[in-house]
């Protein structure tokens, strides 16, 4: 399984990522998940989220998760970009592309990866509240 994990300090360049797609003739499913910062966090109006990351450990944990995906599902490739630092609302904080022969394993692997990321990958977010 091909894999690519990247951190972005600025806006995630979705057009560039989409343009760089590599798909084999065997792949029938290309799934892209885009996570955006909402305007509310725990019921409070916010203007941004500040993401902090323990990067060496986060990379290690992402790769352990990708190892498990490779062992469980016939995924061709996964590319993932997580933004760190201040991310204003409506901007993208997470971009994940999963390419697989069929949609079932692509959806399952993507869901599993994001769920597990939220359990083990050391990234934290702090809301920046909207001031009246």
């Amino acid at each position, binding site marked *: 399984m091909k894999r690519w994990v990247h951190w972005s300090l600025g806006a995630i360049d979705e057009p560039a990522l989409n343009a760089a797609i590599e798909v084999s003739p065997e792949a029938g499913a290309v799934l892209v998940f885009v996570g955006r910062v909402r305007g509310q966090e725990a019921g409070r109006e916010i203007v941004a989220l500040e993401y*902090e990351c323990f990067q*060496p450990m986060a990379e290690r944990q992402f790769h352990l998760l990708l190892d498990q995906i490779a062992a469980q599902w016939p995924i061709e490739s996964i590319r993932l970009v*997580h933004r760190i630092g201040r991310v204003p609302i409506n901007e993208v904080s997470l971009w994940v592309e999963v390419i697989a022969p069929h949609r079932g394993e692509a959806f399952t692997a993507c869901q599993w990866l994001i769920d597990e990321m939220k359990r083990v990958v*050391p*990234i*934290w*977010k*702090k809301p920046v509240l909207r001031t009246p």
Partner: protein
Amino acid sequence: MTPCATIPVAVTFWSYFKDLAGCGSTTVEVPRGATLGQVIDEVMRRFPGLTGLRQSALVAVGVDYQRPDYCLREGDEVSLFPPVQGG
């Protein structure tokens, strides 16, 4: 030469644990052969602001999660942090 009876262990705090500890990192001296649990005990003793969060705290040595019975070696770097929230 007789080895020291204790070893220094660097501990880094992440996310709001830094605020609660009042610093980003510290060093604790523990007996040679001490477990990770003993290091956390010492950290909790020195930083009472973290005590209530012990059950939810995540603990790593280097870039891997470890259990409290992990036996520390010289040069190990411990990280202590709250539940993660990526995405």
